[in-house]
């Protein structure tokens, strides 16, 4: 998953990027509203964390403009004042949740997770696809009840594809969502990961969880058990 963090205070921005990267997300950070708008419209993030008090373009204006540009990924706003006026304005502008500073990073992770799940249509952190179970809160994958050993990148790839279950994801799109912008990309690496993933998820070749759509990309073929919409 690729996230955007827009926060003008240096220390907080670095801490956020660090903690989110450790959780396994690809993070791009912007330091003011204008930069945030540029990044936010250029890339299709999975979620954005936006501080309300930003120079050049304040957080609420930024959210309004992102929504106007058709960017509908979930947004969590950070507010220092904590006044309800700000929270309500932010939510009315298009944000989906808020956090008052100072906050515990665990709380941010939990809310972030909930929003990502919700936007993929999953009500609970556990996604069950027949014999395959993905727990996005614990970041574990079980096959027939036995836990699988996946590298963090393999897990990220699987989680993203599962969230977009049924949709065909191009290699470029996959790369964009798994790496932050500083990473030197090489789309062949993706093929390697998908290949390894397939071997681990489907050792006897019966499940076929990930299909290759010729010339278009990959698709997670399994459907969720709990009737996710």
């Amino acid at each position, binding site marked *: 998953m690729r996230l955007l963090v827009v926060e003008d205070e240096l220390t907080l921005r670095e801490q956020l990027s660090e903690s989110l990267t450790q959780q396994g997300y690809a993070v791009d950070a912007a330091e003011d509203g204008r930069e945030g708008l540029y990044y936010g419209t250029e890339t299709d993030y999975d979620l954005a964390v936006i501080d309300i008090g930003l120079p050049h373009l304040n957080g609420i204006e930024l959210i309004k403009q992102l929504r106007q540009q058709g960017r509908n990924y979930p947004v969590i706003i950070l507010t220092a004042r904590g006044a*309800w006026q700000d*929270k*309500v304005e932010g*939510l*009315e502008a298009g944000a989906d949740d808020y956090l008052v500073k*100072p906050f515990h990073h665990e709380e941010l992770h939990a809310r972030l997770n909930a929003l990502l799940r*919700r936007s993929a249509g999953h009500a609970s952190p556990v996604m069950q696809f027949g014999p395959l179970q993905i727990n996005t809160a614990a970041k574990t994958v079980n096959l027939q009840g036995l836990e699988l050993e996946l590298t963090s990148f393999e897990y990220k790839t699987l989680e993203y594809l599962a969230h977009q279950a049924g949709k065909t994801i191009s290699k470029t799109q996959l790369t964009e969502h798994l790496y932050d912008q500083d990473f030197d990309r090489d789309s062949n690496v993706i093929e390697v990961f998908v290949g390894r993933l397939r071997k681990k998820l489907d050792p006897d070749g019966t499940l076929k969880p990930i299909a290759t759509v010729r010339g278009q990309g990959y698709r997670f073929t399994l459907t969720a058990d709990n009737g996710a919409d």
Partner: protein
Amino acid sequence: MKSLTSRLLLASALLLPCFLGATGYFLDLAFQRSLAAGVAERLQTQIYLLLGAAEMEGETLTMPPTLSEPLYDQLNSGLYGVILDHRYREVWRSASARLLPAELALQQAADPRGGETAFAQVRLPGIQVAELPLFLFAHNTLWESDSGGEYRFRFYILRDQIAYQAQLRTYRGQLWQWLGTVAAILLLVQLFIMRWGLRPLGRLAADLHKIEEGETQRLSGEYPREVQQVTDNLNRVLEREHRQRERYRNSLGDLAHSLKTPLAALRGALNAPEADEGSHDSTALHQLIDDQVTRMNQIVSHQLQRAIVRNHGSKQQQVEVAQVANRLSTALEKVYADKHIRFSLQLPQPCGFYGDERDLMEVLGNLLENAFKYGEHAVALTGLIDNQNLTLVIGDDGPGVPPSRQQEILQRGARADTAQPGQGIGLAMAVEIISGYGGSLSVEQSPLGGAEFRVSFPL
């Protein structure tokens, strides 16, 4: 309009000409009438003169060759006499009238009945004296001849208007000159009156300047009634600002003082002798930092709230509670969408809160958020208004607050449940705001099964 004086002067400058113009017009009209009346009287005298000079001879009248009034004998003198018989045929005309047209349409001009007179201003064809009309006086007379016969003769006097117009012109010139002078004097006087009248404003400006310079704290002194209202209000505003500044100063002082303690605790932890690098110590340090940060956050929020006391003193704008409640519920439904809470709103129509909208939003926001956070499926907001209070009741179907903790959670900073992430500052903030309005907050069991918070604001 930039100045009161110029505003008033402009109004006068527009009105004065209208007034004086109307005055001048009517004076002129009156004078014309009076002049004309004078002319009529003189012409009447002329008629008598002619009547006196005329003599009945047989069936007709004769006039002497010259008359006592020399103008009748001067050609085109401007005074003409004509006598017509009962059939409007000319019997005599004065020597002055010799060059006038043979046919004078006198009958059409004026034709009084027997024994009567007529006076008019007319234009006769063929007679144009300086483009002006003529004065005409006519008298219808009955004469008795020696033989006893009755004969009707009509006497006409014509007078040109040259002298009359000249008089008018002189009069008018003088009239407008005088009116113009009066207008100028009036404007000047008005200017002085206004300067004098508006002097209190100048004094007000000077006094305000003194306040600005810090020489005085408020506007003292007597002002005219109209200005006094402004000064009274201004003094109230100044006093409120002064009190607010005091409050800020105090809060900053308290804030600095209160923060010293947690800051000292943090520094103390750094200065502690290096114990073993066991995970136990680093966890303890971690916990200490977290606790002190929480405490500092509470202190900052508390002082911030105390410092910004909004204006509840004077009559406030009424805030519609329903609107605020709807905005909040929409926002909370979005944030807690996963819980699928059913929110119900029941308020009287209309339901107004007298105070700052932000304050209402803080109180309701915090209480509703708690309800959404702890509630299972349902949150309800009801409102009641009686003659004394506006009461808002927020209930949920969550675990509720045990009676033993009900008092405690309304105290500052205390939390009944520390398992949920987030701070307990919200409720403390609500308490602070509510007491600022002189209201009350209580917590009981809700009919829905969970906690019920009851906020009352006095009206």
